[in-house]
């Protein structure tokens, strides 16, 4: 009587042991290269920590310094500005494109695939490509604008911070908007067609149907897409490092770029960690808002 009982127990125990054994390599990896650095970051942010030489505890000094650091403030303001412009551009274009190709008509699938194609291109590679396209004199984009009478090929797009940012936003839009389109398309497909048809039969115009039927039902996807582009834009680095180098005169330095400069140009690792901690708090807040939005829209 007790023998089979003991055997089932041991089998369950074996399964538990196997579970621990199988999950531990991945967990060890994540612990070592993610959670340990995470704790280190918080610890380092409380220190004056040069790359070489002694580090010593300074309490919250780095954080106080960050609040009064005009360079950091400029970087944060620029990042917010960039985010505030990029997000609506991506959003409106992504939605328009999703509406354009959502119907199952001839050619729609082909155009979907074409618009999505740049998504698989790396951000840095796309930046190198657009950097060339918008070079003065030799850049094909300026040349094309010249042919069409829209501009001059001698324009140096990277000489002004606004025009440089516009080129970067153009590049990011080209690279990202296909993903937004795809996400919104999936959202649109999940809306039951009878809801739309019912509204049309009731005499609602196309615009009214969109405004009062489609948009509300699309809310979870809209929230997701918005948070995606907000989080992505707040973490911008590659595109500015490659295309503007932070210039002209440090006017296109983003928050992550400032962390990079603090930690790996000036080698103030403690200060860089403090900036990282601030960034982490902001991004965690964005993620939390995302979860809240997604959860509340479930009901």
């Amino acid at each position, binding site marked *: 009587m007790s023998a089979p009982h003991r055997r089932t127990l041991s089998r369950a125990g074996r399964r538990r042991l196997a579970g621990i054994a199988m999950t531990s390599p991945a967990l060890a990896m994540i612990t070592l290269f993610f959670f340990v650095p995470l704790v280190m970051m918080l610890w*380092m942010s409380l220190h004056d920590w040069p790359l070489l030489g002694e580090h010593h505890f300074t309490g919250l000094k780095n954080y106080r310094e960050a609040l009064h650091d005009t360079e950091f403030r400029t970087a944060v303001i620029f990042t917010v500005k960039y985010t505030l412009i990029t997000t609506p551009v991506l959003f409106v274009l992504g939605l328009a494109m999703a509406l354009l190709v959502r119907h199952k008509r001839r050619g729609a699938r082909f155009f979907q695939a074409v618009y999505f194609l740049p998504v698989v291109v790396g951000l840095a590679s796309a930046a190198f490509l657009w950097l*060339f396209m918008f070079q003065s004199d030799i850049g094909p984009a300026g040349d094309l604008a010249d042919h069409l009478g829209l501009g001059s090929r001698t324009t140096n797009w990277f000489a002004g911070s606004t025009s440089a940012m516009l080129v970067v936003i153009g590049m990011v839009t080209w690279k990202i908007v296909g993903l937004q389109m795809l996400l919104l398309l999936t959202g649109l497909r999940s809306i039951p067609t009878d809801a739309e048809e019912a509204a049309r039969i009731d005499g609602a115009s196309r615009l009214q149907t969109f405004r009062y039927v489609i948009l509300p039902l699309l809310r979870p996807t809209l929230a997701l897409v918005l948070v995606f582009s907000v989080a992505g834009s707040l973490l911008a680095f590659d595109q500015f490092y490659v295309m503007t180098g932070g210039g002209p005169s440090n006017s296109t330095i983003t928050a992550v770029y400032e962390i990079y400069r603090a930690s790996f140009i000036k080698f103030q690792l403690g200060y860089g*960690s403090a900036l990282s901690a601030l960034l982490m708090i902001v*991004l965690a807040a964005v993620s939390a808002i995302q979860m809240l939005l997604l959860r509340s829209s479930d009901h």
Partner: protein
Amino acid sequence: MSTRTARTRDPGTRPVETDSRNLVTAIRQSLPRAAWWAVCVCLAVLFLYPLYVMLSQSLKAPGEAAAAPPTLYPHELSLNNFRALDGDTGIDIVAGAGNSLLVSLGATLATVVLSTVAGYGFARLRFPGSDILFFATLATFMIPFQAVITPLYLLLNNLGLQNSLLGLAAVYTTFQLPFGLFLMRNSFAAVPRSLEEAALIDGCGILKAMVRVVLPVAVPGLITTALLTFFACWNEFFAALILISDQEKFTLPVSLSVLASGNLGSVDWGVLQAGVAVTIVPCVVIYLLLQKYYVGGLLSGAVK
């Protein structure tokens, strides 16, 4: 309304009227369709134009590639820009591509193996605390890896893994693991439990049951994990820029940044675009071949 009734009552003009009206409605009906095609084609041209620029620029002869104003298409096709990738410009892009391939394949292999094994554990071999641990790995989604790069640099330095491709691959693996775990756990959870139990009753061990019975069903999830990991590693720039300091260990995007910064004299835009093409074309080809897995994976990742 009244004019229409008046017209239909007039038998004399009727055939001509309907004809022209039919033509008008025909045009009016096909107009949205034509407009749709026009808009879609214009957008498609806009989206493909940068890729055309990349290919045409990289295939120009070196002299033509530096021309101002630029030529619209290569007047003389030449592979010289691609030939110059192996170090003629001072930085060996081919070696960079080799490093990228090595790191990306290594990280992909490690991610696939670790997330398959652990995903199965989390899905089927529950143990006290397994749900909490799984949730903890998902919590890493909320923290951007850019935020831990400073301590990571120091940690790798202490482990002797800074400025090493192995260290970079380990970092990439770590940051792709949560997503891989999530995907693989869901893939395994979707396999009917009875399938596995039948194998266990037939005398298979836990590992054998997993490999023989459950794993084949989870293959699509596996391909997706591998694909997304490879793309992420191949294109990654920020960590590679910081964690690798020797030029001969640079990955492809970072070695292109050396070329683009013009540190070695003036920028050779033809060679740079050839390098960009080497980075982009494999991604495009793989995407076109395995579109289903790629898109499916992105969508399941987005709604995590």
